[in-house]
């Protein structure tokens, strides 16, 4: 059974705590993505599940066994590392068969299973090559092959695609998804790329600074971010935020005095807060929030507009095309259900977000 339960897990390196109590329940066959900015503890958590790091406090349960004190080799998991960690002195066949040989599986069965995995991943012509004779994408595939021949209870991936170029990354992404649909093995997938997390996972766990910000289905996170952090992290281009005061339930005053009419009042009735609107949820209207266009970037299917509103830069994404020109004054509207309200808090630095996206 490939269920994984993480119960209030903490991790300290020396006196420095990097995970501050994390709990996740993962069902058999589920694909869960752990996503978050660099240094938030994703890899550490994954390595604790693998048994490569001690668990400082809390419990990890795989199947029906508490594995805190179980060696990695006895956890029935397979892991794909960012640098693939292929054994450089073994050819592809032996790399893929190594785990089975350790388990004293018969020679004939090893051959069968390696060849089956090679067929699934299109590695048959490469079986006799050494890792150094493979391209980055092929190595990545071998690393996946090494994991799937094991037929483990749980797959663990730590940023398996981040060493590939953009095009290959998109291709491998759909291959991983296809593989999961076929094998239905529980998968925990670490990435800092929110698009990867959204497109692959049944459920996404957003982490930040050693705690979980929110757990949910990809579109739940997109539609109903529980915190400013999640709102800023999920979605590309990122959500626009405005901090200010609610003068009355539907009037929002920014620091410079600009007043924005809100389509709905804040359900929590805050006096001071942050509102957020995704670029793709703005519409161009005759009247609404006043802004001045600074850059127009058409891509054919959509047009990205960078505009200034109350002295700050915002992004607007319009379906199709628009005749808007730089310097022009526009008015932005937003549907009542597409505006988000948060407690006032510093918006996570966009530069960092974009860097990791």
């Amino acid at each position: 059974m490939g269920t994984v339960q993480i119960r209030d897990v903490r991790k300290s390196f020396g006196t420095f705590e990097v995970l501050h109590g994390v709990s996740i329940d993962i069902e058999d066959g589920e694909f869960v993505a752990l996503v978050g900015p660099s240094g938030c503890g994703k890899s550490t958590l994954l390595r604790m599940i693998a048994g490569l790091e001690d668990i400082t406090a809390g419990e990890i349960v795989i199947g029906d066994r508490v594995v805190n004190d179980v060696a990695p080799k006895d956890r029935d998991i397979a892991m794909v590392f960012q640098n693939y960690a292929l054994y450089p002195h073994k050819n592809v066949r032996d790399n893929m068969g190594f785990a089975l040989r350790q388990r004293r599986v018969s020679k004939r069965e090893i051959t069968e299973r390696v060849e089956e995995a090679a067929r699934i991943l299109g590695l048959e012509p490469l079986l006799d090559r050494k890792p150094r004779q493979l391209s980055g994408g092929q190595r990545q595939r071998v690393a996946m092959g090494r994991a799937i021949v094991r037929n483990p209870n749980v797959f663990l991936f730590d940023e398996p695609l981040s060493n590939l170029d953009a095009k290959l990354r998109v291709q491998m992404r759909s291959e991983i998804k296809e593989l999961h649909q076929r094998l239905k093995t529980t998968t925990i997938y670490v990435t800092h790329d929110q698009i990867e997390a959204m497109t692959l996972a049944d459920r996404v766990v957003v982490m930040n600074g050693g705690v979980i910000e929110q757990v949910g289905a990809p579109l739940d996170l997109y539609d109903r971010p529980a915190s400013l952090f999640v709102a800023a992290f999920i979605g590309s281009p990122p959500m626009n935020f405005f901090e200010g005061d609610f003068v009355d339930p539907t009037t929002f005053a920014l620091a410079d005095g600009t007043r924005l009419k809100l389509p709905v009042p804040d359900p929590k009735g805050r006096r001071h807060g942050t509102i957020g609107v995704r670029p793709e949820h703005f519409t161009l209207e005759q009247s609404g929030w006043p802004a001045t266009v600074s850059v127009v970037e058409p891509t054919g299917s959509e047009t990205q507009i960078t505009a200034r509103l109350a002295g700050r830069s915002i992004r607007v994404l319009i379906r199709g095309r628009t005749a808007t020109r730089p310097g022009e004054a526009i008015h932005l509207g937003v549907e009542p259900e597409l505006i988000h309200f948060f407690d006032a808090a510093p918006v996570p630095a966009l530069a960092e977000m974009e860097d990791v996206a």
Partner: protein
Amino acid sequence: MTALAVSRPRRSSRGALATRLRIVAGVAVSVIFLFPIYWMILTSFKDQVDIFTTPPKFLFTPTLAAYAEYMQRADIVKRLINTVIVATGAGLLSIVVGTMAGYALARIRLRGAATFGLLILLSRGVPPIALAVPMFLVARKLGVIDKHITLILAYSTFLIPYVMWLMRSFFMALPRELEESAMIDGCSRYGAFFKIIVPISLPGLLSTLIFSMILAWEELLFALVLTSRHASTIPVAIAGIAGDTVNGANWAALTAVGTITVIPVVVFALLVQKWLIKGLAEGATKG
């Protein structure tokens, strides 16, 4: 454009000149260093008369007399065997212990590990002469003077730190994920070390082993102090011949024994070079 076109060939010809100068300098240095060895080997094939002719002869009738004479003296053959035993024993012991210690220092997070490693390295700063006498006293008390094992252990005191530090940096260059992957694939840490890390490190291991054996092969001080007859090594014999004040220096004998001593070192050094280059070409550290 024109400036570029003109300057380019000039630059490359200057580069070629620099290369040529470097080659000349390299050859000159090699000649200076290799000439004494060449002279030693040449002398070992001369007879007594040719050795003392002035100016020195480069063309002469070679003779194996010096070799024949000294190979027949049992103690040279025996010392050769002793040297092989001691160098091999010390080399193997040090490579096993030093490699495992180096691995531990490279990988296992342990408080004080760095300090411990530095202490071991510092111990190499103690001049051997300061250790030789205490070692002699200890060995005599234990009744192990003039035994192979004594010399092997004595050599290990400086070879183990040497191997440890060389292998430590070698292992640190290997990605940690290699062992982690092996441990997930069904190995214990020992299994991962022996099945994955050791095979990958083989070129480095063999080179280090050979270097250690060369160091043990040519060691004189400990051999002089800790052995007398039974376990005595070749360097001691050379020192004996060179320092023979009763009969005067026997040049033929000295150079013949010297040549015998140097040949294995040269062969070993060539082997090391081959393995090192092979190791580098294979990109052993490439994940």
